[in-house]
């Protein structure tokens, strides 16, 4: 008898962990070659290789779950734990940048002029585009919840519409933030203000792009009938990630844009 007698998933051997690790090597050494020698070939290869690895690895997870039926309840539980732990690790990642911001802004040194924002820095008006960005992300939190409930009620048309709206709002946020970046009177090299501002908001923006991509993948899968009204963990993982991105923005807005101006 060759069939397993347990509910867990014994994964086929896969080359993607290896190609992922090699891509990471190319990315890191590629960054060094770019920073120090203006040489971009290694970095470009690393970016392409990591994108291909991610595409194929996650394509295989979809195949294993949706097409091969390996995502039994205990397996799904493990996937849920995994996503939660990953998001917690990302919270710690952002905690570092917030620590750096509060370290410098709570007790401004003589080098900044003894106050925050430092002398010479003209911060963005928190009541203009940043406030719009807040509204956009909060609205996207509503639309994704609507999409989820529609999905659970097997309402295909509404869940697709709501998901599309969420993606559009995410793209709109990215567009607004990019235009704000071109409007700032300060750059990343303008002292500690510039560093903390762009590192924190920059990584947040990257996570918005990642989240939007995840949502777009969910939209395609929804159109291909991958989700059922009771089993759609991929969508739930994307929704959790999206809410996390929204919450990070709220902290950013209140700390850096509002209190820090």
């Amino acid at each position, binding site marked *: 008898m060759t069939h397993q007698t347990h509910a867990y998933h014994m994964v*086929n051997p896969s080359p993607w962990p290896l190609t992922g690790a090699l891509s990471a090597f190319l990315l890191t050494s590629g960054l060094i070659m770019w920073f120090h020698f203006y040489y971009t070939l290694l970095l470009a290869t690393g970016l392409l290789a990591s994108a*291909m690895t991610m595409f194929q690895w996650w394509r295989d997870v979809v195949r294993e779950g949706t097409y091969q039926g390996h995502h039994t309840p205990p397996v799904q539980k493990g996937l849920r734990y995994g996503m939660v732990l990953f998001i917690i690790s990302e919270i710690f990642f952002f905690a570092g940048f917030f620590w750096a911001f509060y370290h410098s802004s709570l007790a401004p040194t003589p080098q900044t002029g003894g106050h925050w924002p430092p002398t010479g820095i003209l911060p963005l008006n928190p009541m203009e585009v940043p406030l719009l960005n807040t509204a956009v992300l909060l609205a996207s939190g509503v639309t994704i919840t609507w999409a989820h409930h529609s999905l659970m009620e097997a309402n295909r048309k509404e869940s697709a519409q709501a998901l599309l709206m969420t993606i559009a709002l995410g793209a709109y946020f990215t567009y607004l933030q990019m235009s704000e970046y071109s409007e700032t009177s300060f750059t990343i090299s303008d002292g500690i203000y510039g560093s903390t501002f762009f590192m924190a908001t920059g990584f947040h923006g990257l996570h918005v792009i990642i989240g939007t991509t995840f949502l777009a993948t969910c939209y395609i899968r929804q159109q291909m009938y991958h989700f059922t009204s009771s089993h759609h963990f991929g969508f739930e993982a994307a929704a959790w990630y999206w809410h996390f991105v929204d919450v990070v923005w709220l902290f950013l807005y209140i700390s850096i844009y509002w209190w820090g101006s």
Partner: protein
Amino acid sequence: MLRNLLALRQIGQRTISTTSRTHFKNRVAEKQKLFQEEDGIPVYLKGGIVDVILYRATMILTVGGKAFGMFEGAAYAIYHLAVASFPKKQD
């Protein structure tokens, strides 16, 4: 020749889809059959020839890239060490 042209026109009409652009057909059952075939092929190759092409391309990019990167890195490091070993005399 005109007869052939007419036949071509008929085929064209028959193959036009009647579903709207945004409607996908539910092909999950077909995919399930394909990926559950007991042929010993691992999941990362089970989709067909495109899987094999993508896999080979990824391996070439990464393993080849690593080999090239290490060689290049070593070459750069040795070059810069050599340059540093013979400092230019300050006038």
